């Protein structure tokens, strides 16, 4: 019998949904990293003699309206999906966590200003922010990452603040404070590490949300522009042809679904695994 290591990682890897989620994420990440070796066709290779063909040995997911291999485009599209999810959440964490910690540490009117600004950002739906940014700065991967990342900031800042406030009232923090620990050290050494669990969960769920938002932006035509394939813009181009060649819409749709599902399952499992009250099961 395998010893039941009662660590967070151990708990996580015993949950089937987490195993599935991690496997999907690793698979898609591997596609993104190894795209150059995995793609059988250049994504700009057009074969005008085989437009909109169904699945075959040569084209396992068929070809699109311009005779391009759907599987190769899907693989290259995974790069954008992974880049956007990491980039947007990375930006959200990089701005949101320090803002939340600063609000707790500095308190008073600074706390108020920071949190009211965060409230103001939340008022604008992230899609709307993204459309406005794309109009102002042009459509590029950077704009999409920025738009989705900015939308993540308030949620992470709020979560950081509420966690840090809760942890700060604990006895060991008071003890450290009495022992003369500087506020910055107190925050980084004692409060932040003990507030991390919900942030990790929120970030993981945020990655799923980022993938979905990128796809939505691509679908309405303001995301990363063709000829760079993204799952969103592939879906946009395929959708009017739904009744003619359904696999063209189904392929990117399923890819988006799987990656978003994977991030959500992993996030969900992480929440359970990181919860100290859960204990051994």
């Amino acid at each position, binding site marked *: 019998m395998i010893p039941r290591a009662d660590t967070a990682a151990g708990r996580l890897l015993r949950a089937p949904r987490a195993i599935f989620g991690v496997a999907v994420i690793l698979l898609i990440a591997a596609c993104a990293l190894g795209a150059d070796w995995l793609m059988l066709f250049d994504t700009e290779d057009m074969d005008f003699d085989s*437009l909109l063909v169904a699945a075959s040995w040569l084209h396992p997911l068929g070809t699109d309206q311009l005779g391009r291999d759907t599987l190769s485009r899907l693989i290259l599209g995974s790069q954008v999906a992974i880049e956007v999810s990491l980039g947007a959440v990375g930006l959200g964490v990089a701005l949101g966590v320090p803002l939340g910690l600063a609000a707790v540490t500095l308190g008073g009117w600074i706390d108020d200003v920071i949190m009211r600004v965060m409230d103001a950002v939340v008022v604008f739906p992230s899609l709307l922010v993204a459309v406005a940014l794309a109009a102002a700065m042009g459509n590029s991967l950077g704009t999409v990452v920025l738009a989705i990342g900015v939308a993540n900031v308030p949620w992470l800042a709020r979560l950081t603040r509420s966690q840090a406030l809760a942890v700060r009232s604990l006895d060991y923090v008071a003890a450290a404070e009495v022992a003369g620990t500087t506020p910055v050290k107190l925050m980084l050494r004692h409060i932040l590490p003990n507030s991390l669990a919900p942030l990790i969960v929120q970030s993981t769920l945020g990655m799923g949300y980022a993938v979905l938002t990128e796809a939505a932006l691509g679908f309405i035509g303001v995301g990363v522009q063709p000829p760079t394939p993204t799952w969103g813009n592939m879906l946009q181009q395929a959708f009017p042809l739904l009744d003619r060649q359904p696999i063209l819409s189904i392929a990117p749709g399923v890819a988006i679904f799987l990656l978003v599902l994977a991030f959500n399952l992993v996030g969900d499992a992480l929440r359970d695994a990181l919860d100290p009250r859960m204990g051994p099961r």
Partner: protein
Amino acid sequence: MANSNAFRRRTLVKSAVLGAGSTVLLARHGRAAADKPQYGGKLRVAYQLAPGALDPVVGRSGGDAYYWRQFCDQLVDADPALKPRAETSLAESWDVSDPKSVTLKLRKGVLFHDGTPFDAAAVKFNIERLLDPATKATPRAAFTAVESVEAVDEHLVRFRLKRPWGSVLSTLADRGGAMNSPTAVKALGADYAFKPVSTGPFKVAEFVSGSHVRFVRNEKYWGRDGDGNPLPYLDEIVMNIMADPTVQVSALKAGDTDLVYLPVRDVGGFLDNPKYNVETFQGGGVVFTLSFNQAKPPMDNQNLRLAVAHAINPEAIVKAVHFGRAIVAKGGMWPTGSWAYDPTVARPSYNVAKAKALLAAGGKPGGFEMDALMWPSEVNTPTAEIVRAQLGAIGIKLNLKVAEVTVATEKFYYGQEAPLFLTSWSRYPEPDWNASLIYRSDGYYNAGKVKNAALDALIDEGAATVDLEKRKVIYRKVDEIVLGEALMVPEIYGITYAAAAKHVMGLDQVFGWDAKMYLHRMWLKKV
């Protein structure tokens, strides 16, 4: 007067053909006897664009004509080839033989919808209103040859000209030739923009912004069909604004609308469906053209421009993007179905070897990198992707700069931000409109404002010539220079499709010369 007679002869021949049109349609669909038009009923039409204004003179949207054509007549009406057609015009005849004047003999007994008589004074009022800068009339630039307007008698009106005006008849067939009631214009002021009063077969009954426009029958309409029956047949038309073509097609299938434009991807399915009729207009517009800025490197180099043009295979684009339902553009900016169309002029056709040789001749044997502006749409985006791939094949790396249509247009023609623009062009069958705007050295759409003396001279000559055969020769020469030096290379003409439920009759006459809908003679067969 000789010219005018020539027009009249042609119109008579044409009207005979039109008269037979409905029979042709019926024969095509296997009915035995020609149906006699039935009166009454409400036609529901779905259309993509809301009107910029209902007053034809002040509206600025390309979609305006769908509305004003239903409740206006023009001084000079034109057939689908843009040849003048007297029997549907407000002028019974015209004399354009004098280069210093144009004389129109007006139809008698015509009333505006408010009862104001249509006469020479009304025409004078309309043209003077249009020329007044305060009106901000959209077609004003096309009327600058007019010095003054004179009401010779009640039904004879004369335009005094500053210079010869070759495109006068085509120009009067567009916005500027639609007549507005002087009484209503004076009474309503700025409100007139959405409460127009004209002479046409329908009257505007209701306008709900963003939703629909409702027209009702003009009981006092002067027009008659070929058998002498009064027009129009319909009691009512409702034009519903539906921005998404997919939604329009769904509405037609659901029976919520009677008549729509059909996206090319759906045409096959409708042609096979016995519940609908489909009407085709060959050459809806220039759906894809290469527009160059001749002043902006590397497209200031004629060899490199030609290399780009020769590297592009429009047949591949027709097949992939338009599902085979489009036409390779062989007549430059004068599209199929217009009198100026001439497919025998040489165009830079697809030839990779030649493209590579031209690259070498242009000093860039290995290719180069450049920006191209484009605006995204279901058609433009895949077209741009193909162009990028085809140019890539001869070593030209194209960086696509994407912006919304008005922004991209402004960036290219005004901002001079890119050497190449991948765009489309509305159907303008009167060649002077395009020639003086795109090719003349001072034309707005001559992005680089590059002067070509030979072209300017030809364009001025064309603008001053009235005889269509002579004009055709002149505009062929214009095309030889434009396509030969690759100033602008139109690649594809669209085909426009309209689909209607089977009981909608008169579909064979639904397209005007601008491929826009013209509902004057539609009727509904009672089932």
